């Protein structure tokens, strides 16, 4: 519970910063002000400025927006495709459909994710959208697997048998009974994938495959700061710590949510 509150607070700080950045940031993240570049933290620039003289507070705020958006949509893609696939696989356990879905899952898992992301951007060019797609694709099997696993154990439960005796079809049972009962698990997994998505986005934009300039992104800030780490360490510390804190917050939240929502854990605690 403490984890949930602490993690929630951490994540909320960044979400709030991202939200505020739509209407206000302390400085202009697209304007270049060479005269004021590489200012150390303090004074009118609480976190300092980067090599173009942009205010790091503003950069982090707008960067949070990109990170959150990319990770969130990627989780959305993963859930949107993975959950129905997982439900379908579980509902037709042992059939060819189940086999195809699960083998497809294994295949996606077998591909090195970062490489595929690089290939995707090689085909379509780097952009936040392609980062989303690349991360999203690898979320699909995660959600499919989690959903199928949880759904399979539900399908043997007597209330599902009861629904089948009541003449309900597999699709209807999946939607009416299975889905609501795996929802908690999905929320927990979603939080975890969200935090992994933030890390993945940082990694992708670090190698230049994420959101394109002038849109700031944490990963690219790190990449750009890298050569200056020896004389302007704040450039690497600020985005790096932002990633760490945001991910930490989400992970703590995930842990807390799991304790709160996951019936298995709840039972174990009781």
């Amino acid at each position, binding site marked *: 519970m403490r984890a949930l509150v602490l993690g929630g607070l951490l994540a909320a700080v960044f979400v709030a910063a991202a939200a505020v950045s739509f209407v206000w940031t302390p400085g202009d993240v697209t304007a270049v002000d060479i005269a004021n570049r590489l200012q150390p933290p303090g004074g009118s620039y609480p976190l300092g400025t980067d090599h173009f003289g942009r205010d790091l507070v503003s950069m982090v705020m707008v960067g949070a927006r990109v990170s959150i958006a990319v990770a969130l949509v990627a989780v959305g893609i993963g859930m949107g495709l993975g959950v129905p696939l997982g439900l379908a696989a579980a509902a037709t356990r042992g059939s060819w459909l189940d086999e195809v879905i699960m*083998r497809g899952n*294994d*295949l996606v*898992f*077998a*591909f*090195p*994710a*970062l*490489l*595929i992301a*690089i*290939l995707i951007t*090689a*085909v379509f060019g780097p952009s936040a959208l392609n980062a989303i797609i690349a991360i999203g694709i690898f979320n699909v099997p995660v959600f499919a697997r989690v959903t199928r696993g949880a759904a399979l154990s539900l399908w043997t439960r007597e209330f599902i048998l009861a629904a089948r005796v009541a003449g309900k079809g597999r699709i209807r049972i999946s939607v009416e009974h299975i889905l609501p009962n795996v929802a908690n698990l999905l929320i927990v997994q979603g939080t975890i994938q969200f*935090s992994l998505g933030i*890390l993945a986005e*940082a*990694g992708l934009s*670090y*190698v230049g495959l994420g959101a394109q300039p002038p849109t700031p992104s944490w*990963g690219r800030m*790190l990449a750009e700061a*890298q050569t200056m*780490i*020896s004389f302007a360490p704040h450039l*690497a510390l600020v985005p*790096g710590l932002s*990633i*760490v*804190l945001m*991910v*930490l917050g989400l*992970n*703590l939240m995930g*842990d807390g949510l799991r304790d709160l929502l996951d019936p298995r854990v709840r039972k*174990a605690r009781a």
Partner: protein
Amino acid sequence: MLRYGLRRAASMLVSLAVASVVIFCAIEVVPGDPAQYMLGLNASPDTVAALRAELGLDQQPVTRYMSWITGMLRGDFGISYTYRTPVAQMVADRLWISLPLALYALILSTAIAFPVGIMAAARRGSVVDMGVIGATQLGIAVPNFWFAMILVVIFAINLGWFSAGGFPGWEGGLLAGIKALTLPAIALALPQASILARVMRSALIDTLGEDFVRTARAKGLSRRQVLWRHALRNALIPVLTIIGLQFSFLLAGAIIIENVFYLPGLGRLVFQAIAARDLIVVESVVMLLVFAVILVTFLVDLAYAWVDPRLRGAR
């Protein structure tokens, strides 16, 4: 056992065949021409065409796919467009860095995660456990490339204990090679160790709640004895899964770390090859990595059977 192996091998082959088609098609649509890349800004179009012909790029995709596949079955991965050397040789050379690095990182992360995870599970709820939970949460949240940067600044630039990167080659001695791989392995291992420690801890806590643990306690075993003699091996099953996943991740996912430490590994090879549109190298390396993942999955399955006698019956 033989039949089981055959069946697994057959399904592996199907996966590989599907993967090869997916990889080839994906790479077919990558825009960019290796010949143009090689010849640069001043080359005339007919020069580019001449090079394309020389590289065999003017053939139909189906022909190229078939020759790629049949070549690969013979162990011939083709000739790199840019390096003009056999891909198999290049890949083999790079593997001698990527594989030891992945193993090193895996050993490190296991060596850290096991004691830490066990300690935390054994003293569940204690200060030690809380500390482990916090530290591993932090470890997971740290992007490994950022951690790598910090390691370089501290240990290579300021302290000078390690070289900042590069690889002297195994012919320079085992110790020198291991030393060169140490910082990269640490950077790779930290987040992995955190994940592994958490899995270890929760798997152990789960098994410690099992009935047979209670039976063992009723025999007169102490908590510690139960943990070591009964719970640990049972907890290994989920841990093995994660180790299997991590190995494939370490093999393929080290691209960024290999860049930070300018290690001539597989990841960097494929990264460069994509940039240079050396597509035959990309295809072969991706194929190889997919093969490695599938192989590791297979080995993990075998390891399950080793740990769990119930699965041995299912052969």
